[in-house]
């Protein structure tokens, strides 16, 4: 069991917003209704609705959504963060067709041409953000949690494509 953690507002939201816009083209207006918080024991960054407050006097296990396990520029956004906001990204995005999206969910390698520079990518399929990926040495590596892929049947996705 973990020791009690507390959450404090992230000291540099401005730097984070600048980084998100520069890296993924996510407009800062997207986060106007939210606040970033730092978790004391793990140094993780969390995103919560601006009106959400941590209840006092009780052990807090999570507050809003885990946005970064490690603050940028070292860390990348989490997959849950990507799913929530990735549709608005305009940079560092890889759009996959339905067949490649199914391959990704099946845990198979996805070949991409023009992968671009090494770095993080938000992966998208037709009409659906897929999660995070990373380009290294010209190849795409999936950053999707393995636990997500345990039960999913990729054939149930993208019936019309």
């Amino acid at each position, binding site marked *: 069991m973990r020791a009690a953690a507390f959450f404090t507002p992230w000291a540099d939201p401005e730097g984070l917003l600048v980084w998100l816009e520069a890296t993924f083209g996510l407009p800062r207006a997207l986060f106007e209704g939210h606040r970033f918080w730092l978790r004391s024991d793990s140094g993780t960054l969390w995103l919560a609705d601006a*009106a959400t407050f941590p209840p006092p006097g009780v052990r807090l*296990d999570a507050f809003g959504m885990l946005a970064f396990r490690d603050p940028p520029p070292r860390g990348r956004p989490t997959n849950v963060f990507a799913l*929530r906001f990735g549709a608005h990204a305009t940079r560092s995005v890889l759009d996959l067709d339905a067949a490649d999206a199914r391959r990704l969910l099946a845990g198979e390698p996805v070949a991409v041409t023009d992968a671009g520079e090494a770095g993080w990518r938000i992966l998208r399929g037709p009409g659906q953000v897929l999660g995070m990926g990373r380009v290294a040495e010209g190849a795409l590596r999936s950053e999707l949690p393995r636990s997500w892929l345990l039960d999913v049947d990729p054939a149930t996705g993208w019936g019309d494509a």
Partner: protein
Amino acid sequence: MSVALERYLDVVDDPVAFLACAARPLPRVIWANPLRQDPARTAEEVLRLCPEATPLAWRPDAWRLPADVKPGRWVAWMYGLVHAQEEASLLAASLVGAKPGERVLDLCAAPGGKTACLAVDMADRGTLVANDRSYGRLSAIRRVLDRLGVTCTAVTCGNGTVFPEIPGGYDRVLVDAPCTCEGTSRKPGRQHDLASPRYRHTIVQIQTALLRRALRLVRPGGRVVYSTCTYAPEENEGVLEAASTEAFHIEPVAAPPGLRLAPGLPAWEGRTFRPDMANAVRLWAHHNDTGGFFVAVLKREG
């Protein structure tokens, strides 16, 4: 046949239908998550994957699926476009009536199905505290909230009977109390023996303490919803009666379209209950082809 259900044959309207239904598998119900995409788009996806899906009359963005369909394998599930929840449980969460920007407490939240419903009703704005006493069960809540993309929640691990107050109080509190789970007999592997008197006594003490605490945590005029997935009057009407040391009244619940609701019992085993107990709701499994459930909507007075 479940021994645990035999004791209700005197108070149920159709004992044969009741026992027959309690042994049948439960239909699955899924609902569209509007935080991910427009439910109309999700509806197309659901009908593509399961043409037999029928929308609920009282909640058109939720569908009943045949018991053998496994939505947990869908890509649409993995990405949080839909969530599965028993229909009776969905009703209990809906009766909380959570609204955007409010301060809402789910006192016994794991595994998080009702929490998810509350977050969606709040349009992911405000403060939704999802508490559970069991640390090991918090991860289940977090998995649900992560998958659905919720940001308005604080997941806490505390004893609900002594949960700390906040200045001004919560607008709404849901007490989905631990219980003997007799109403879940239709879920796989959930045929229950009759609860021992000693266990029943213990759980009633806990339920009463949780409900009393909830009535202190909610602001005056605020709403407390008390629910269990059991038929036992000791754990339902009896608990409401025992918590009557706090000032509240039980509000009437209008039956949603397509659902048949039975009133709370006026008496059980020689014990009579307060007059507004008739406003409480008991869902018998055979009335709506759901699980068994009890829900009471309370308004704190003063």
